[in-house]
C-alpha cells in the first residue's frame, strides 16, 4: 500500500518538481504554436503601417516599422470603396444573422419540444443540410438568384446565407433546448399557457447563452462568407469586404501591399473584437455542437 502511494507521489512530484522539463515540453511548443498562429496577423498589422520604401527593401529589420505611415490606410478609406464594402458586410451579416436566428429558434423548438410526427426526420434533414458545402451549391444557386431577379443585390446574400446559418443555428439551439427541463413546460401548460407564451417567457430566457453563441457564430460565418458573395454580386458598391479586398484592391501586376494588408487587418478586427467579448460562448457553442 505504502509503496503504491509512494509511486503515485513521486510521479506527481516529478511532474511538478521539474519546471525545466515543463518549460521544454509544454511552454516551448506552446510558445511556438502561438507565434506561428499569430504571426500572419502581426505581419498584416506591420505591413499596413510601413512606408513603401521600407516594404520593398531587403535591408534593415523587416520586423519593425521605422517610419510608420497612414498613407495606406488613407488610400484605402478615401480612394477605394472600402467603407462601402464594410457597410455592406455589416448590413448583410446582421440581417442574415437576425432572420436565421429567428427561423432557427422556431425550428429548433418545433423539432425538440413539439415532437410533431416526423420531428426526428426533420432534425436529421437539418443536420444533413449543414453538411452540404457551399462550393457544390453556388453554381445552381447562382441561376436561382438570377431567375428571381436578385442578381447583384444585397438581398441575394441575405437570402442565401441562411442556407448554412439555419442548419447550424438550429442544431446548436436544439442542444440548448434539450437541456431545459420538460417539467417547466408541463407546469406552464397545466396553468394554461399557450405554446407561444412558453417559448417567449420560459424557453427563450433560459436559452440566452445558446442564442448568443448561435448569434456570434452566424455573424462570423456571414462575415467570412466568400464564394456566394463572389458569385452573386458584381458591382463594386454591393460587394462584401472579403470579396472587395480580393477582387478590387489587387490591380494588375502592381500589388499595393500596404493597402491590401490594411484592408485585411480592418476587415478582421470587427469579428475578432466581437469574438473577444464572447469567447466563452463561442467556444462552448463550437464544442457543444460537435459533441452532440
Amino acid at each position, binding site marked *: 500500500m505504502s509503496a503504491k502511494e509512494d509511486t503515485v507521489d513521486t510521479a506527481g512530484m516529478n511532474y511538478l518538481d521539474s519546471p525545466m522539463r515543463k518549460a521544454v515540453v509544454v511552454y516551448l511548443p506552446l510558445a511556438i504554436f502561438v507565434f506561428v498562429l499569430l504571426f500572419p496577423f502581426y505581419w498584416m498589422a506591420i505591413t499596413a503601417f510601413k512606408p513603401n520604401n521600407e516594404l520593398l527593401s531587403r535591408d534593415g529589420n523587416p520586423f519593425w516599422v521605422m517610419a510608420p505611415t497612414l498613407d495606406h490606410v488613407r488610400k484605402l478609406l478615401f480612394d477605394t470603396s472600402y467603407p462601402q464594402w464594410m457597410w455592406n458586410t455589416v448590413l448583410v451579416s446582421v440581417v442574415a444573422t437576425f432572420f436565421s436566428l429567428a427561423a432557427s429558434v422556431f425550428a429548433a423548438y418545433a*423539432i425538440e419540444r413539439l415532437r*410533431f410526427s416526423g420531428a426526428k426526420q426533420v432534425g436529421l434533414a437539418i443536420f444533413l443540410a449543414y453538411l452540404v458545402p457551399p462550393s457544390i451549391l453556388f453554381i445552381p444557386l447562382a441561376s436561382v438568384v438570377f431567375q428571381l431577379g436578385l442578381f447583384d443585390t444585397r438581398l441575394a446574400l441575405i437570402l442565401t446565407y441562411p442556407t448554412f446559418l439555419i442548419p447550424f443555428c438550429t442544431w446548436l439551439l436544439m442542444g440548448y433546448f434539450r437541456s431545459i427541463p420538460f417539467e417547466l413546460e408541463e407546469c406552464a401548460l397545466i396553468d394554461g399557457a399557450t405554446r407561444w407564451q412558453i417559448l417567449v417567457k420560459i424557453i427563450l430566457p433560459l436559452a440566452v447563452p445558446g442564442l448568443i453563441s448561435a448569434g456570434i457564430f452566424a455573424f462570423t460565418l456571414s462575415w467570412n462568407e466568400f464564394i456566394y458573395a463572389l458569385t452573386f454580386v458584381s458591382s463594386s458598391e454591393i460587394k462584401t469586404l472579403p470579396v472587395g479586398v*480580393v477582387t478590387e484592391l489587387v490591380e494588375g501586376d502592381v500589388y499595393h501591399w500596404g493597402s491590401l494588408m490594411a484592408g485585411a487587418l480592418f476587415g478582421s478586427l470587427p469579428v475578432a473584437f466581437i469574438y473577444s467579448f464572447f469567447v466563452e460562448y463561442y467556444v462552448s457553442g463550437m464544442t457543444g455542437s460537435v459533441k452532440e
Partner: protein
Amino acid sequence: MLERLQNSRNALGLLFLLPAAVLLLLFLTYPLGLGIWLGFTDAKIGRPGEWIGLENYSFIAQDAVTQLALFNTLFYTVVASIFKFLLGLWLAVLLNKNIRFKTFFRAVILLPYIVPTALSAIAFWWIYDAQFSIISWVLMKMGLIHQYIDFLGVPWNARISVIVANIWRGVPFVAITLLAGLQTISPSYYEASAIDGATPWQQFRHVTLPLLTPIIAVVMTFSVLFTFTDFQLIYVITRGGPLNATHLMATLSFQRAISGGALGEGAAISIAMVPFLLAAIMFSYFGLQRRAWQQGGADK
C-alpha cells in the same frame, strides 16, 4: 382530446418550421437538384441548357486539368487533414496541461479560425511573395538558402504553400474541440493507470486516445469535409496556378462555370465531388468509430 392535442402539435410544428423550411427548400434543396440537372446539360451563362446526358461527365473524366484538380484535391485533403489532426491533438494536449493563462491561450489560439479566410489568405500571399517573402528573408539571413524561394511559382512549392496555409487555419478548430473532449476524461483514469505504473506515453495511448476517439471521428469528419471543398484559400493565394498545380475541384468548377460561362460543365465538376466527399466522410467517421468500438471504448 389526445388526438386534438396531437393534431395541434403537428399543425403548430409545421407552422414553426415554415420559415426555415421555405428558405432551405428554395435555396438549398432545389439548387441541389438543379445542380444535378445542370450537370447533364450544356447550359451556359445566360442560356438555358439542353439535355446532353453524360457528355459533361465523359468530358471531365478525360480532361487532364480536371484529373489534375482531383489529384490536387485528394492530396490537399489527405496531407492537410493529417497535419491538422496531429498538430491539433498536440496543441489540445498542451492546453489541457496545468498551465498559466489558460483562458488567454485558448482565446488567442482560435483567432485564425475566426478571421475571414479570404483576408488571412491575403496575408499568406504576401508572406509567400517571391521577391519580399519574410520567410525567404529569415532563411537568407540564417544562411540556409542562397536565393529567395519562389513559393507560389513552382508547382510543388505552391501545393505545399497552400497546404501550410490551410493547416494554419484549421488547427485551432481541431485543437479547441479536442481540448473539450480531453476535459471530459475523468482524472481518475489517469490516477488509476499511474498507480499501475503506466508511463505518460502509455497513458496517452491507452487512456486518452480510446476515450477521445468518438470526438476525433466527428472533428475529422468536419475537417475533411471542409478541406475537400475548400475554395477561398486557393482562389485568393494562387487562383489554381501555377499551371493548374493547385486547382481544387471547387476552384476549377468556379473557373469553368462562372469565369468561363460553362454552367453545365462547372456543375458536373462540382457534382463529381460528391462521391469522393461521401467516401471521405464515411472513411473518417465510420473508420474511426469502428476503431473505437474494436478497442472496447466509446459507449457514448
